[in-house]
């Protein structure tokens, strides 16, 4: 009994499947050929002329078209689909029908002057590998940063911490920095015979951005106006003192020279030196003592 029911169930399932597929199956003598890349179907079956004449032309053609389109759609649905932005799309293969081109295939362009030169010289294009962060360098950099933080000094530039690959610019910069870091700021370090002097070693001027902090810019402008408005001149004490000292020195040396020049020319040098030193020292001390009041006076005269 159970066996019978299983058979019945299977038979019923088969029937259902057949019915489902009936709606989309089409019987044809010859299988039709497809070019799915172009969405084309070629039906090579012979068309029954008698049937064509019996039926109304349009109806016959319409039913033929329906059958062929059904087969084409069946074939298209066999291809893989994917979902692109809430839309189901079917991926089409390459078109198979050979169709003539519009224009002849492009000719290879003639090599440029550089390409010809490179070929002549045998220069090959070197591909730069993608830079990968080096763990060793990372450790080194962090170590130096920690030291700097502990001792509150600045870390040297990125190029000076050792990395795996150092370009020529990095190395040359490192050499120049090392040369300058002697006691006499690199003044007595000889250069190698063909080494060139380092360029771009001036002070880099830093400018404020054009449109930055509006409040700070406003403050700066107002301060400038205030300074321009004020009647009292601004005073730089250091500058004034140095200026005064230089003036005093000059006066003294001029006086000594006049004295030394008129009288003893033989021992003039020695006397000049000794007197100049002693005089200079005494004068300076005096000058220093008088400094601030003198300075103020000097500024007033100015």
């Amino acid at each position, binding site marked *: 009994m159970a066996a019978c029911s299983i058979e019945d169930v299977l038979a019923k399932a088969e029937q259902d499947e057949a019915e489902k597929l009936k709606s989309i199956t089409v019987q044809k003598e010859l299988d039709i050929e497809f070019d799915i890349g172009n969405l084309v179907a070629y039906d090579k079956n012979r068309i029954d002329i008698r049937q064509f004449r019996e039926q109304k032309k349009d109806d016959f053609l319409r039913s033929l*078209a329906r059958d062929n389109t059904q087969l084409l759609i069946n074939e298209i649905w066999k291809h893989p689909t994917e979902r692109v932005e809430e839309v189901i799309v079917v991926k089409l293969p390459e078109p198979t029908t050979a169709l003539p081109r*519009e*224009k002849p*295939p492009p000719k290879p*362009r003639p090599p440029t002057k550089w390409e010809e030169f490179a070929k002549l010289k045998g220069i090959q294009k070197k591909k730069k590998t993608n830079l990968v962060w080096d763990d060793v360098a990372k450790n080194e950099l962090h170590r130096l940063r920690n030291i700097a933080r502990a001792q509150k000094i600045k870390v040297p530039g990125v190029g000076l911490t050792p990395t795996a690959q150092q370009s020529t610019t990095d190395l040359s910069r490192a050499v120049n920095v090392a040369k300058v870091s002697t006691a006499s700021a690199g003044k007595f370090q000889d250069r190698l015979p063909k080494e060139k002097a380092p360029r771009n070693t001036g002070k880099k001027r830093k400018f404020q951005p054009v449109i930055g902090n509006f409040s700070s810019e406003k403050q700066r402008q107002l301060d400038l106006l205030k300074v321009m408005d004020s009647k009292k001149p601004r005073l730089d004490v250091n500058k004034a003192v140095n200026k005064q000292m230089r003036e005093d020195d000059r006066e003294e040396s001029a006086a000594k020279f006049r004295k030394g020049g008129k009288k003893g020319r033989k021992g003039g040098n020695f006397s000049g030196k000794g007197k100049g030193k002693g005089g200079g020292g005494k004068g300076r001390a005096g000058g220093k003592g008088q400094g601030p009041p003198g300075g103020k006076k000097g500024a007033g005269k100015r």
Partner: protein
Amino acid sequence: MKQYGGVIKPKTKRAKRFLDNRAPKLTENVKNAMIMKGGNTSMTVTQALKDIYALKKPSAVLYKKKNITRPFEDSTSLEFFSKKTDSSLFLFGSHNKKRPNNLIFGRLFDFHVLDMIELGIEKYNSLSDIKSSKCPEGTKPMLVFAGDAFDHENEHKCLKSLLTDFFRGPVVPSVRLAGLEHVLHFTALEGKIYMRSYRSLLKKSGCRTPRIELEEIGPSFDFILRRTHLASDDLYKTAHKQPKALKPKKKKNISHDTFGTKFGRLHMQKQDLAKLQTRKMKGLRKRRGPAAAAVVAGETSLKTTEVE
């Protein structure tokens, strides 16, 4: 530096882009069609040209003025127009007593006529005659060619290729399933060619693939094949030549047999078979005395091994 063959050397980037678009490329643009009228045209012909322009939009240009030329005799003005609009397909409509309601479909290669086929319209229903909702402009149509004439006769084969080229639209890698609406059906029967245009409705069937129902929309033509002008075989060969760069690259040492199995080839150095390390079988070890001859357990072959 690219040589711009032509009078104009581009001075702006936009001009350069424009010229590069029209220059020969590896993968080409969609073929543009120019639709024009001859010295004398009838209502049928003008309406037919308008309908085909609607099918072929936006990669088509419809000229309003009449052009007094005969394509089969003199094709210079066609070539001039194709250079101006960068079109490689044309449709020329005319009407005279000898050839009433005449349409000439043709294509060009390198701005010279490749082939042309003349079709006469015997019966015509325009887009406006058939009242139904139409497909949106620019949908890629499905093409069906029915009838054994398209396979046996040379002129019909050429016509098949020309019509595919004309109507297929841009070549796309994927297409929206719901957008497969437009069907163009060509039937070749008794020297006549019937063109019908339908809108396909995808109905529910029991399974994944839908059932198709067709609804006639667009223009329907009953053509009769008249004159043809086909190119010589070697011109066809030159036109079909694909640049080498487009060929798929062949992988070395991999081959397929007729069943589709993939075979790979391994190249080994020369091995001394006597000194090969095989499985140690204690029983087969050389014994002192009259012992059995040592049998090598396996012989590795140096030729093909099955991959996959």
